[in-house]
């Protein structure tokens, strides 16, 4: 018996989801990362509900997206505009598109208590390569998933970069 297992468990913020659901949600996050890393942006957009919010706060622990700036605070329409912009022949900061690897880890799936809704916490390690330069980012991520019919969709995604408040060169890719 290891010493670790005898430690008292930290109280969970919300009860963990059932194992099968948790596995499903985890695979869903991996699928999102795969679509972004393979430039399948239309399929990526399809993972989101029409009323989705995609949020990359500017400040650590930022509570409010409306009265404080955000690196990105998009409704579905603005997400579509980002994807559409990439297809234009004079999308200077997006030609070539950044190549990325989204490494998703530490996935914890939590039951929200609402039928057909899950909260998924994860960490993201992202490498970006473009024009002779590689950058790395790290973030805490929270997805809120909603069951639409028998398909999970993302209705809210929040990406808290650990360096969101620092001086940053332009960001023209998705977290």
């Amino acid at each position: 018996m290891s010493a670790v297992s005898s430690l008292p468990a930290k109280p969970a913020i919300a009860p963990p989801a059932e194992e099968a659901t948790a596995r499903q949600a985890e695979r869903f996050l991996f699928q999102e990362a795969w679509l972004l890393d393979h430039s399948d942006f239309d399929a990526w957009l399809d993972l989101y509900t029409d009323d989705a919010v995609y949020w990359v706060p500017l400040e650590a622990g930022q509570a409010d997206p409306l009265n404080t700036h955000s690196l990105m605070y998009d409704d579905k329409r603005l997400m579509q505009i980002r994807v559409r912009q990439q297809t234009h022949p004079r999308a200077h900061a997006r030609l070539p598109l950044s190549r990325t690897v989204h490494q998703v880890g530490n996935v914890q799936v939590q039951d929200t208590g609402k039928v057909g809704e899950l909260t998924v916490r994860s960490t993201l390690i992202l490498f970006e390569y473009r024009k002779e330069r590689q950058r790395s980012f790290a973030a805490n991520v929270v997805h809120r998933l909603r069951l639409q019919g028998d398909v999970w969709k993302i209705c809210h995604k929040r990406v808290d970069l650990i360096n969101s408040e620092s001086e940053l060169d332009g960001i023209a890719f998705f977290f």
Partner: protein
Amino acid sequence: MSAISSRQIEALIQDDRVHRSVYSDPAIFEMEMSQLFGKAWLILGHESQIAQPGDYFCTEMARQPVIVARHEDGSVKVLFNRCSHRGAMVCHEQSGNAKQFVCPYHGWTFETSGRLRFVPIAHNYGESFAERMPEFNLTPVARVDSYRGFIFASLAAEGPSLLDFLGHMTSSFDDLVDRSPSGEIEIAGGVFKHAYNGNWKLVLENHNDTVHPAFVHASSVFAAGGPETVASTPVSDISIRQMRQNGAPPDVWEKLGLWTAGPGHSYMGDYHDDRRLVVGLNNPVFEEYAEALTARIGEDRANDVLSVHRFNSIVYPNCSFMSQFRQLRIVHPVSVDRTVVYTYSFRMKGAPPALFQDTIAFGNVVNGTASWVLTDDLEVYERTQKGLTGQLSDWVYLGRGFGDDRPDEHAMVRGGTGTSEIHIRSQFAAWKNYMSAGSA
């Protein structure tokens, strides 16, 4: 580094062209830090950042760390952030409130005025050290002044007053402040800090360049004009409208006004306005705001205030702001080919809270580090910097509208059309004066 003579400097700046080395030569950059950033009035921030005694924020002037603090007597102090003992920064937080600054190294303790108050084991620093303590106050920056709450400082003891330096650019600050129903504004909503591998001048040249939007921003104009397959929300309305605005037809840009004032300053006027951007969205909040403004200053005056249609105002060499959209950008040169721009939004006290949400949404698209729009500007700055390292062609042409510049009221000069490069020629005329002054 060998000194660069004023004759050499003058040869780099001609009427309608400049030598590429002004963007790419590290020796010229070092000279800019002493001759230009070391002499001009630099904007540091706004008094709302240090509203209470003891409030402070840290920033840089010509790459040197400084503290901007509100002393207990209410005065604004700008101090070099460098302990007078061994040189450590006495303050490392970006902002906060402090009764005193204590050096982390040996505990030397300074008041927010800069006065050295206490030195641990003072007797060890020499017998007469108690009398010598005033020699060891934090060094104040030579001159500090403010205009309508905007804090400026100059590293040079001599030079024109702030009011003389600003000239008619005061009217752009007036425009920003007068729009507030209470007459008060405050910085709020966080700070974007966007960086690029390019010279600091590129961003100041771009803000009043009215031909670039159609080309640099072509992709976001295109994308924002796409079919609406999902409903837009208040979150996207302003972003989409501002992105589309960059695709205005050429005659819109030709007809707007470009004015230059004083040493390198300029503003873009007669451009689109709050009414088109916000009221155009049938936003009832704007009417509520206009009523609040009218209630304080009367209908005629309110109409005057709201009929000013300015976009970017540039106060050379480190300030660019948007009076009617309440955005401020402060340019920090890092090296000849690296620049960081800090951007701020203002809240008008007494305006409906929802109006500030429009300001935030507008700032996200105009100044956001991950914005559809700004990312293309940053990309083009970097490509320009790369292009200017090429040695086969030495000259940068600034001839758009050259010969059509005409004097206007308030000692300003106006470009013949709104697409003139007059603002860049004016910046380099000022540059030449700063850089050649006082040298052989």
